[in-house]
Each structure stands twice: as C-alpha cells, then as structure tokens.
C-alpha cells in the first residue's frame, strides 16, 4: 500500500469524522486537517496551484472564519460546556 492510498483512506476517515463528531469546534478542526491532507493529495496529482490554494484557503482562512462564527454564536464557550455537563448529570440523577 503506497503513501497515496494511505492519504486517501485518511481523507475518508476525516470526512466521516467531520460529519459524525458531536462538538462543532472538533468538526472544524478535523475539517482543517482534511484540507491539509487534500493539499498533499493535490501535489501527488501534479497540480501544485491547487495545493497552495487549498492549504491557504481550506486549512487556513475557512477554518479560522468558521471558528470565529462559532464564537459569535457562542457555540464555543467554557461556561456552555460546564452547563451542558451539569445538565447531563442532573438528568441522570432524576432518571435514577
């Protein structure tokens, strides 16, 4: 199995993990790593132009803007995480 096959398998894993992860921030970070892998794949497919653009836009700017949007809508917030954990524990107690 060559390096290219390894990259492609990792791409599929990253794509699935982006869709399946519960935390939005984790999704964005996995998506950025997907873009990084994709830029290496573009180099192997002999299109360095696309590789540069993918690395700058996909792994850099898009991820950054998505994280900023998540902050704007207060989806990344330490207090929210705490609250979620508390709610979960409270629910468990009531069920028991």
């Amino acid at each position, binding site marked *: 199995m060559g390096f290219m096959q390894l990259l492609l398998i990792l791409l599929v894993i990253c794509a699935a993990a982006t869709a399946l992860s519960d935390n939005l921030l984790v999704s964005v970070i996995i998506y950025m790593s997907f873009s990084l892998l994709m830029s290496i794949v573009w180099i192997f497919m002999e299109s360095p132009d696309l590789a540069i653009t993918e690395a700058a836009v996909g792994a850099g*700017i898009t991820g950054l803007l998505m994280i*900023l949007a998540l902050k704007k809508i207060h989806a990344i917030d330490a207090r929210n995480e705490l609250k979620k954990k508390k709610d979960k524990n409270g629910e468990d107690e009531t069920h028991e």
Partner: protein
Amino acid sequence: MSDDSRSVLKQLLDRLTQEPLDRHMSEQETAEAGQDFYTYNAEEQRRYEAEHSEEQRVEGLLRRWNRSGGEKQARGLYKLLCTLIMLVFLAVMLYTVSFLPGFGSAEHPINNDVSRRYIEQGLQETGAVNIVTGMILDYRAFDTLGESTVLFTAAIVVLLLLRRDEESEKWSPLAAEAVRAPHSDNFYEPQHDSILQGSARILVPVILLFGVYIVLNGHLSPGGGFSGGAIMGAGLTLWAIAFGFDDIRRFFTYKTYQRVVLLSLLTYALSKCYSFYTGANHIESIIPLGTPGAILSSGLILVLNICVGFIVTCTMYCFYAMFRKGEL
C-alpha cells in the same frame, strides 16, 4: 375585514395622526384602544373557540402517543430511514463512478481540442510559463473578474451585517457597553500570549514574503493572485491575532480597504476591456509579451495577478476584522 373593525381602525389612525407621535398614551387610552382592536364579533368568537378545542384535542392525542412510547418508535424509524437513504445514495454514486473513465486515461473527455490548444500554443499566445495562470488570467480572464467581484460582494455583505454601528453607540449606552461587556466573545481571551507572539514574530515576515513571491511569480511558477493573496491575508490575520489590531490599523484602515479594492477591480476591468477590444477586432495589442521566463513578461498577466492579490488580501483580512470586532 368587516365594516365594524374598519371604522375602528380609521378612528385609531385619525387619533394617531392628530396627536404628536412621541406623546405616550395613558394606560387607560391604551386599554381602550386594545379593547376596540381586539373585540371579536360573534362569528369570530365561534371560530376561535372551535380552533382552540381542536388544538386541545391534538395536544391530548400527542401526549397519549408520547406516553405509549411513540416518540422512541419515531426516532428509531428516523434513524432507519436515514441509514437507508444514505446507503441508496452511496450505491447510486458508486454505480455512476464506475462509468467514468480512469484517472489520467487517454480517452478521457477532457483530452479534447481545447486543452490541446492550451498546452501547445499557450506559451506563444499568453507568454506565461505557468500554463494554469495563462488559462485563468488570459483565456478565461472574464471568469476570474467574476470571481473577484463575487469576493467583493461577499465582503460588502459581511460589512453590512457585522460592521459596528458607531452612531447607535453614541446615544445608546447599552450598545456601547455590549462591545466591552463580559458576554462579548473576546473578553476572556488571553491578551499577550508569549508563544503566539514569538511564533508570529518569526512566521509573519516569512509568510508575507512568500505571499508576495507567489503573486509576483504567478506566471512563472505555481500559484497566482488568489493563492498568494490568501497567504498574505492569513499572515496579516496571524499578526492581528497575536498583537491586536493597532499595528495593522497604522497602514490599513477602512478607507484604504475601499480605495485599494476599488482601484484593483477597476484596473482589472479596464485592462481586460482593452485586451477584449483588441482581441475581438483583430488589432495587434501594444503590450509586449516579453521573453518567457523573465519576471516582466506575459503582458497583462502580471498586472492582473497583482490586482487579484490585492483584492484577496484585503478581503480576507477584512473578513477577520469584521468577525472579530466589527471595524477595520
């Protein structure tokens, strides 16, 4: 609307137009107006009651269904349907892919006259060693102008949505407070992170130089205006994250943004107008193509690359600044 309610509305309108608008209604007046406004006639009352009893009936049904484990069944059905639909889509997609020609095979439909022309005559016709830039900025320059305009439009929309409204901050203490309040999203961020600042000091000059190199060398090596601009925008953004906006605001304000982007778009459009005009009328263009491989070669492509680079850099940084604090 019945005649009754129409006359009520007319009375209300008359009263509103006669009185100065900023006078507050007394409580009694408000109650009277409300009463006038919300009086139902008999038919409306009947319809309202019928609707209400219907709502209660449906609610009772839903509650009973919920108690008998209906919700769990529905969730299970939802998951089952999701899996089924996804599997069907997967099968259809894989079946379609099996008909595509193999990667890089000779009988691929993209191996037609157009791409042969690009490969064989691209260097003579555009003067660009990097054939991709030759295609993007010469053969298909109209597409790239559209892309730049789309980016510019996106920036305008972001400005409209996220720009801080300084007028409202003047008269509303609440709006002014919201910028600095603990619930604003950058209140708890570390302000002087030494790891971030140290790495930014080393990385940002290299990133900016690399971006300039990619823009200027777009017709010779991989890259071009868009990718170089994105890299430079990312470099500026990294500096802004590490050190705040003050350094960048010394040379890049909202006015600079407007002027640079508008000038770049106009230069792009004018130079492309010139080459479309000469090309369509079979006039020899006065812009020399130069020797392939030299930095000052390939006619207008260098100018267009620089224009696109400016637009993309400014827009990327503008996006970051708008999302972060609502002003440049």
